[in-house]
């Protein structure tokens, strides 16, 4: 087994052994069901929210309502709970020296940890999306969806577009994973690694909502979370999706490079 494959197995084993990993995935599975049931039981739908007007009548609208809400802070938090801790926990437990004295390079460990954190984040997203879509369709129904331009979208096409919309959040979520990794490596503190990306995400949303910053908005990591809107308009437009790919990739690369350089240069003293 190569060093990287062994490190990947080791990181996966550690993650599987942690209670919070299972709790997170369980939460991603159950929470959407509860949210759908609560929203559905409201006497009046949340009309001021995107797709809120139809959320209690249409399952696809419900899932897009949940997506809009989740993108605000749930998705960054979901991935940051693992990614923000995966490096800092080695400092917390003092185990850097345990693993780095075993002919395993920092590069190998870094690569394995990043891969495991990214895969876990994406897995959590898939569970959350699947649970939300299933709960929404089962509880509210699967009538044709009214699009953002008022056009009717057939049930089958709506399911595809809703799935694509959830899928479009994967790259910005990876961006937040990498941001959490950077905070985790830099701060050596799991609380900072988890909370900082979420807070930064909320700040970016606030900045994105301000007027007069059109040139800055495409560079914010939260902007790609809204790029799916174009899929539900008529005519459909995908420019924001492509911009989102560039933005998310840029954030991911910069964060990972910075984290890697910090880890490579670090003197392992306490940890």
């Amino acid at each position, binding site marked *: *087994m190569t*060093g990287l494959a*062994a*490190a990947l*197995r*080791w990181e996966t*084993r*550690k993650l599987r*052994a*942690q*209670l919070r990993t299972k709790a997170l995935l369980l939460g991603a599975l159950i929470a959407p069901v509860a949210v759908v049931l609560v929203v559905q039981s409201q006497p009046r739908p949340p009309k001021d929210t995107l797709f809120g007007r139809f959320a209690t009548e249409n399952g696809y609208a419900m899932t897009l309502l949940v997506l809009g809400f989740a993108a605000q802070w749930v998705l960054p938090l979901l991935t940051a709970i693992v990614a923000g801790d995966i490096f800092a926990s080695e400092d917390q*437990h*003092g*185990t*850097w*020296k*345990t*693993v*780095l*004295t*075993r*002919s*395993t*390079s920092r590069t190998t460990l870094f690569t394995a940890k990043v891969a495991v954190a990214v895969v876990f984040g994406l897995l959590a997203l898939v569970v959350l999306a699947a649970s939300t879509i299933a709960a929404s369709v089962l509880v509210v129904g699967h009538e044709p969806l009214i699009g953002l331009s008022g056009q009717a979208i057939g049930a089958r096409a709506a399911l595809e577009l809703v799935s694509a919309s959830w899928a479009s959040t994967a790259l910005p979520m990876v961006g937040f994973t990498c941001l959490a990794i950077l905070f985790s490596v830099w701060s050596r503190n799991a609380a900072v690694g988890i909370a900082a990306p979420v807070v930064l995400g909320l700040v970016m949303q606030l900045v994105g909502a301000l007027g007069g910053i059109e040139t800055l908005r495409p560079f914010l990591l939260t902007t790609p979370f809204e790029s799916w809107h174009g899929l539900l308009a008529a005519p459909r437009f995908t420019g924001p999706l492509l911009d989102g790919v560039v933005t998310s990739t840029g954030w991911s690369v910069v964060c990972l490079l910075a984290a890697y350089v910090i880890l490579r240069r670090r*003197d*392992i*003293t306490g940890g």
Partner: protein
Amino acid sequence: MTELAVDVVGVTKRYGDLVAVDHLSLQVAPGEVYGVLGPNGAGKTTLLRMLFGLIRPDSGTVRVFGRTWADAGVHLLDGVAGFVESPRFYPYLTGLQNLEGLALLDGSRSRGRVAEVLEVVDLADRRHDKVGGYSYGMRQRLGVAASLLREPRLLVLDEPANGLDPGGIRDMRALVKRLAASGLTVLLSSHHMDEVEEICDNVTIMRRGTVAFHGSISDLRAMAPDPGHVLRTGDDVEAVAIAIGRHPDVDVQPDPDGGLVATGQPVRLSAYVADLVRADIPLLELTPTQTPLEALFFMLTEAEVHEEHEPVGAAR
């Protein structure tokens, strides 16, 4: 010429203004049990961290079995195992899971040895317990087990008996001696003179990042001062008079804490004490203040800055 297990040449490491290790050189031959001794803050752990590549020296070279970090990277640690400071593990995993994970990182050779090394350190019956529930001594032993997994040629142990109770210290020393007897090269850091004296063949005593002594344990013993004893008698004035009058080779001085301190070679001291008994002076207490090697350790490591001198002991 036999390749050295460890060859440290002119290594310096600074943390800001603090020079943790200052132009340090030491060599450990294969099969040797080598002690690095010094008080806390002397630079022992910094030296071991550099050996393992956890930190990088500002200058100088560290070679392990002829390899350097620059030319071998992490393969420098092939055949090397041990721990720096106290061994640390993942508390939410069992002892067995921790070792299996580390064996995974080591490769196929280590994986078949997990059960065997748990037996060696007497942890086989606690292997399914989470490490978070282990005592300090058990974690130390698990650290040795994790090191043995790699079938090392060089075992590096940083204060392995630190924090252990007397029984744990006895067990740990017995384990290290057993491993050393099997032909393993052992590099051991400690701040306990008796530990190094009991286990090691050669020793470097460090003081503030520099070498204060370098040589064999027998060389060190030869340099040791006469042992001092706390002496309490029924008539201290007469006891001092007898020393001055009949035993000039025994130095007897008042102890600030009460009583006397008598310093001299054991044979001379025995003759002096016999004289006190013959003179009907009641002997209330005769206890060693510190062992000769302890006294030498303090002399070497507590010298003031203006007394700094070239390291004593044999050059290697």
